[in-house]
């Protein structure tokens, strides 16, 4: 055995109550070789039947989505339930929902990276992929919501024969820039993190197609230390750039609402409230995806209960922030003395959309509070159920914000009850099809765990003769150094023999 885990109750990956003792990030009898094998094999062997079934269903839904978009283009936006006074309707609800989910990935990649949260290494690739596919789904909705999609390029400042230019004082245009920048930077961040792992796949590839494809996308990476040096600096810079970007994207999405004059939208709490909600929903989606994935892909050694518990703690924190925002919104509506604002909120909780409001409240505020119990935090099926609740609740949050405010505008004669059409419903389902289609392809063909990064946090990676420049200890949290000190003493020179015998 090459990895010597501190002899404690955490040796099997279960969690301890002793805060001084943390469960290791990789459990089981793993070294660099076995880790590489186990992760790479996922895309080298034929996937199980379940994968084909899931892919078939998702791809069918995605095809349906494409068909519905074609129908929309042919007939017009009247196929949706959008009607006066609710012109935003489900497409914008879905947009905000998906772009919110897209926040967890880069948050894990960038902000947890800057905070030296090493547990991120096992789940960041996964979450980044989720981010990119969620942002793709998000980008579709406002794109098709503009009505005349063939002139959607007018959103961008491109010279045209009308000599007109976009109006940069509008938050809707900020949104165009925020979401497209976020999508681009997320893809760059994801791809850059994947280059070393793609090189691993290239070097293990058996057939010509794999060799060519992985060889092309790994750009000829050789793991040169001179390259690693620039790579790490560059990755750090990207993380530093992406961290405020994550916070800015949903802030700007919230400006779409907050900069308008509508009661229920025109509040300064929106940016932090939206960002907290986005992180909340994103982490819920990470749990929804990773709990089954670690089961089916045998990732339990790399995505341990410690990882899951950390995610749940973040969900508890952000869920509480969201609950606080719901309550403070009500308080401010009353305290401001603005009758329109107060009417809107009373109408939300007790009006025709009360069912949606209380669904949202139950799912987003009550259900994550169960994470105060350690049992819930560390039991996969329980957290999975709660994550589903949170996903539903976060969709309803956007529904409540968008629909209730719009359906009761300033002119009571135009008040209306919003009813979605079958196209609305199937498009929401179809967007999930798109999301899961890409996600399943990702699981099948790309490294779903950042192997190079996980190797870095494994105890074998630590080099002790070189403690003479502690300022460069970018990838060494204190707790792991301590763990390492212990294992160092016990570590026999077994690794050579073991890997040679392989």
């Amino acid at each position, binding site marked *: 055995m090459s990895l010597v885990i501190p002899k404690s109750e955490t040796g099997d990956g279960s969690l301890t109550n002793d805060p001084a003792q943390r469960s290791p990030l990789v459990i089981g009898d793993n070294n660099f070789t076995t880790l590489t094998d186990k992760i790479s094999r996922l895309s080298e062997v034929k996937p199980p039947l379940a994968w084909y079934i899931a892919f078939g269903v998702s791809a069918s839904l995605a095809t349906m989505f494409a068909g519905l978009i074609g129908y929309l283009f042919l007939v017009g936006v009247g196929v949706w339930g959008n009607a006066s006074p609710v012109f935003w309707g489900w497409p914008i609800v879905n947009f905000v929902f998906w772009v919110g989910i897209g926040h967890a990935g880069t948050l894990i990649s960038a902000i947890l990276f800057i905070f030296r949260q090493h547990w991120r290494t096992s789940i960041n690739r996964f979450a980044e992929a989720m981010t990119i596919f969620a942002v793709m789904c998000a980008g579709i909705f406002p794109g098709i919501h503009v009505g005349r999609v063939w002139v959607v390029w007018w959103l961008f*400042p491109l010279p045209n024969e009308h000599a007109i*230019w976009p109006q940069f*004082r509008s938050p809707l245009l900020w949104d165009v820039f925020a979401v497209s920048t976020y999508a681009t*930077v997320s893809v760059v961040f994801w791809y850059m993190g994947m280059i*070393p792992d793609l090189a691993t796949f290239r070097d293990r590839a058996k057939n010509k197609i794999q060799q060519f494809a992985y060889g092309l996308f790994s750009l000829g990476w050789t793991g*040169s230390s001179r390259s690693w040096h620039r790579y790490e600096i560059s990755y750090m810079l990207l993380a530093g750039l992406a961290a405020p970007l994550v916070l800015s994207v949903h802030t700007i999405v919230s400006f779409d609402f907050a900069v308008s004059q509508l009661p229920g939208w025109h509040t300064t709490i929106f940016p932090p409230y939206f960002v907290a909600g986005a992180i909340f929903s994103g982490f819920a989606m990470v749990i929804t995806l990773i709990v089954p994935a670690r089961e089916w892909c045998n990732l339990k050694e790399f995505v341990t209960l410690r990882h899951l518990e950390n995610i749940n703690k973040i969900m508890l924190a952000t869920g509480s922030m969201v609950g606080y925002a719901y309550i403070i919104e009500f308080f401010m509506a009353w305290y401001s003395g603005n009758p329109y604002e107060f009417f809107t909120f009373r109408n939300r909780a007790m009006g025709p959309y009360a069912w949606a409001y209380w669904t949202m409240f139950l799912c987003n505020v009550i259900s994550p509070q169960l994470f105060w119990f350690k049992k819930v935090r560390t039991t996969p099926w329980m957290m999975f159920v709660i994550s589903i609740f949170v996903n539903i609740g976060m969709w309803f949050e956007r529904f409540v914000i968008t629909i209730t405010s719009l359906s009761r505008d300033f002119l009571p004669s135009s008040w209306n009850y919003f009813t979605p059409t079958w196209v609305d419903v199937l498009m929401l389902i179809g967007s999930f099809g798109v999301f899961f289609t890409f996600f399943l392809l990702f699981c099948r063909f790309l490294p779903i765990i950042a192997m*190079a990064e996980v190797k870095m946090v494994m105890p074998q990676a630590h*080099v002790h003769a*070189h403690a003479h420049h502690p300022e460069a200890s970018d990838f*060494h949290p204190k707790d792991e150094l301590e763990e390492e000190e212990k294992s160092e003493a016990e570590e026999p020179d077994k690794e050579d023999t073991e890997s040679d015998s392989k």
Partner: protein
Amino acid sequence: MSESETTAPSTDTSSEELVYLLAEFKKPAQVLHAAEKVRDAGYQKWDVHTPFPIHGIDEAMGIKRTIIPWIVFGAAVVSGLTAFGLQYMTNVEFYPFMISGKPINSIPSNMPVIFELTVLGSALTAFATMILLNKLPRLSNPLLRNERFRRATADRFFITIDAKDPKFQAEGTLEFLKELDPSHIESIYEDYSTAKMPGFFFWASLIAVILLLIPPSIVLYMRATPSKTPKYHLIFDMDFQPKFKAQTVSTLFPDYRAMRPDVPGTIARGELELDDRFYRGVEPGGNNQVAQSESASQGPFQTVAFQEGAESQEEGGSESEESDSEESTNESQPSEDSSEESSESGDAEEGSSEEGGEEQASAQDPGQDVPWVTSFPIEVNEEVMLRGQEKFRVYCSVCHGLDGYSDGPVTHRAMELEQGTWTKPVSFHSDHVMKQPVGRLFNTVTNGQGKMPGYRDQIPPEDRWAIVLYLKALQRAQAASLEDVPEDVRDTLRELR
């Protein structure tokens, strides 16, 4: 390492060239110590290949900190300024318009896009400089053809020393590497014999280039050849709409006109024109018999001056109820009609008095009883008169002649052709016209007289008054005597005569 196998460097063939010496290590700590020794031995072109970045390797190899952060900082500054410039140029210079009461140049509103584009530019630069400084992509690399080296991305650690290194000696360096205690040493050769481009590549590229040329050549062909068929509308946008355009026929209305006349009794915004003196050249109220009788014949007009009604009351406060209502009711219509009527009668009268007796015409002149204004409702100065001269020469002189004697080029031509329908315009210097008050002259310019059309639509009222002013000046000048001229120029004038 004694037990480590060593592939002896094979003898060079003509096509193979030694490019690297490769030493394999099994543990990160081993490669780190070895790297320190290579560094201390003074090698320059060498590298350590590892599956993950090893902590402390930068110092062990003596790698200097990269300049990427500075490049990214520069990119951030440039991107931010570009973003601001983009917004400033498009919203302030190219296409300024007011929205939501925000200033045209609104820096707070520009901040989100500045931030986003700064991040975008810096992130792309960080990635691109990392790739370029690492000399990637490099898809053909002798190292990647080595079977053993494949584990450099999995679980093995390698040191490579480039054969181009100034300190490199085929034997000496090999010995040096052996001292580092690697688990394996190997020489890497570059086989240049296989570096030839495969034959199909040329043909594939050629076909690709030819295929790529097809779309632009179609576009060029379409641009260069005229076509009789209208362009194909893939997307109709709003080019074809089920609507009636101006001057077209519509069966919707009994008169078959798509254009609808104004609703009787309504006045378009901005066309109230309450000031009778200025717009019609008549005194408000008074004995406005002609206009009244004619307006009565026009049918039942309603008073529809809304807010402006009060204003009209104030203006015409001293006038009789009757005339007041007339004035606010038939804004421009009645005076036009009145002039038409008067011109008709004037026409008949003129026809009879064409050759001589203009003076007797005034007896039946219906315009006589209209209370024409006798003073200018505009400021009278030289500038206005010169403007009147300019407008007179543009609009009037073609018939009336430059000095008002009805000898303009059109008149000349018509007289030459002996057109029976042509009525010679009246000379401005006839007694009949000389006596007319300025209001009446203004009315003639506005609504026309006889064959003369009205110039209401071509000339704004202030310019019409300017023309009248010039006309009065012209009349005065033509009737002037020598005594009207300043003394110092009288001699010159006499000489000219």
